[in-house]
């Protein structure tokens, strides 16, 4: 654990005479030296535009970026490199799919979501529904933060064209039974889209085994840089999907009377890509491959469980969501206090957590709460972080 902490320079930062406790990892994770160096080295040593020049720098830049694609392919178990489309992140990946699926939906068709979704897996589908006349339906969430599977099977019908859900909930940490949901949705004839933003760091994702049509994740939530992410799509699905942005890189030939497009993934990567970001993401994948991720994830789960049992001892502590399988997130309230009050008091004690609706307003409405305080862990968080959180929450309750 101390070894991995040394890889993240920002963890040495001191705030109010103590190391900063960073527990907002579900929002974004910190970056290891390997990633920071990969980005800096690219700009220092290899910077050139990719895919279209026959000189050494361009070849190096292209190789570095395409190696990153290969690393991402292996990371999520995709069968083909061409199934890895670089996007700005999960949000852009879902928007890309939702834009491309416009012709799939007719008036009265249904798009099935869940109440657990982040806004990024709701709003693009609402926009598609507005364009196409399709109807949005959402699987109910139970009070314990689990999806209501009975409701899922009731709402999954032959009208369901698209089923989109998250793998792990950003707000509660619920690990959803993605394989079961995807299988059932496929059997019902729906196109399946999984938001993996909160899953990829903490779980081994195998998209081929999951058998979903699309899977999206962000680099910055798994130690990579911001502004880069991946849309995985089954090759036949990507082939069938129309391009959504036009420009350089994505075309084969252009005449003023028309153009022909590249094959995936380039069909979806118009313009100069975020080369440095892709290389940084590739470095993050290599980093995760090099550390003992299984052990660290096991240690993280243990730390979260232990922290939770200590927090439960604090009078007024109310856990939000008690899923059977929890990933790296503790969402809670303090009786009688607004989440923001708690967040401010934790900030004063050098503990960084997130408060609010976590971009999941429908979930908060379903649970009947204004928001929560969310402590989210990563592989570098240690017992001292957990202890500081527990003490800070304990102290905060004496103010309220």
């Amino acid at each position: 654990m101390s070894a991995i902490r040394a890889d993240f320079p920002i963890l040495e930062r001191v705030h109010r005479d103590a190391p900063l406790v960073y527990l907002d990892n579900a929002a974004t994770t910190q970056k290891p030296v390997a990633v920071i160096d990969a980005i800096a080295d690219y700009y220092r040593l290899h910077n050139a535009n990719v895919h279209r020049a026959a000189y050494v720098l361009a070849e190096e830049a292209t190789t570095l970026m395409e190696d990153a694609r290969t690393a991402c392919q292996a990371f999520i178990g995709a069968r083909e490199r061409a199934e890895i489309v670089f996007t700005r992140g999960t949000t852009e990946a879902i928007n890309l799919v939702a834009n491309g699926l416009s012709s799939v939906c007719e008036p009265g068709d249904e798009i099935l979501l869940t109440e657990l979704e982040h806004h990024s897996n709701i709003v693009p589908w609402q926009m598609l529904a507005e364009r196409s006349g399709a109807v949005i339906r959402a699987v109910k969430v139970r009070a314990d933060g689990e999806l209501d599977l009975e409701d899922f099977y009731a709402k999954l019908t032959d009208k369901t064209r698209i089923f989109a859900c998250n793998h792990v909930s950003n707000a509660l940490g619920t690990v959803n039974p993605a394989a079961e949901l995807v299988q059932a949705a496929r059997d019902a004839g729906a196109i399946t889209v999984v938001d993996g933003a909160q899953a990829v760091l903490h779980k081994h994702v195998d998209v081929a085994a999951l058998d979903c049509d699309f899977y999206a994740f962000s680099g910055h939530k798994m130690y990579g840089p911001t502004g880069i992410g991946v849309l995985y799509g089954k090759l036949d699905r990507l082939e069938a999907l129309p391009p959504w942005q036009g420009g350089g890189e994505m075309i084969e030939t252009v005449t003023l009377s028309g153009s022909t497009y590249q094959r995936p993934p380039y069909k979806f990567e118009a313009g100069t890509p975020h080369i440095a970001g892709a290389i940084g993401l590739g470095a993050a994948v290599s980093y995760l491959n090099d550390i003992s991720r299984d052990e660290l994830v096991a240690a993280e789960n243990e730390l979260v469980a232990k922290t939770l049992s200590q927090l439960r001892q604090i009078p007024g502590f109310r856990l939000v969501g008690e899923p059977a399988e929890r990933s790296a997130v503790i969402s809670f309230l303090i009786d009688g206090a607004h989440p923001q009050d708690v967040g401010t008091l934790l900030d004063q004690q050098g503990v960084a957590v997130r408060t609010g609706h976590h971009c999941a307003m429908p979930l908060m409405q379903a649970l009947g709460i204004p928001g929560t305080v969310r402590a989210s862990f990563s592989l570098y968080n240690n017992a001292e972080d957990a202890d500081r959180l527990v003490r800070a929450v304990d102290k905060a309750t004496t103010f309220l």
Partner: protein
Amino acid sequence: MTVDELKETFGFFDDWEDKYRFVIDMGKDLPDMPDADKLEDNLVRGCQSQVWLTHSLGDDGKLSLHIDSDAFIVRGLISIVLAALDGKTPEEILGYDVEALFDELELLTHLSPTRGNGLRAMVARIRQIAEAESV
């Protein structure tokens, strides 16, 4: 409590704990706005907490402000804003530098746009009201 009394009191605080206990206590003492006034039109939406604001202009030309929030610390900060601006003429309100006051009390971070607590938007709304009423 007047602004001068606030400044004097804040001068005695040794650490963040004393200060925030005081702010929270002020927040608890702030009179509640009747639910009937907590209308969409009176809402200043923050990303995290919400603020409601109503006002009336008296015959003496002074503005009465009524403000409430769902978070204690924001309510305490509202008390400070009220100490500075409530019962003042629109011209006095427009001439008052709320940021300078929060800076002096070392609470300026709460007015930062990233806080999402609606406080910054509330101060802007009060200035809009003062501008409209001063015409």
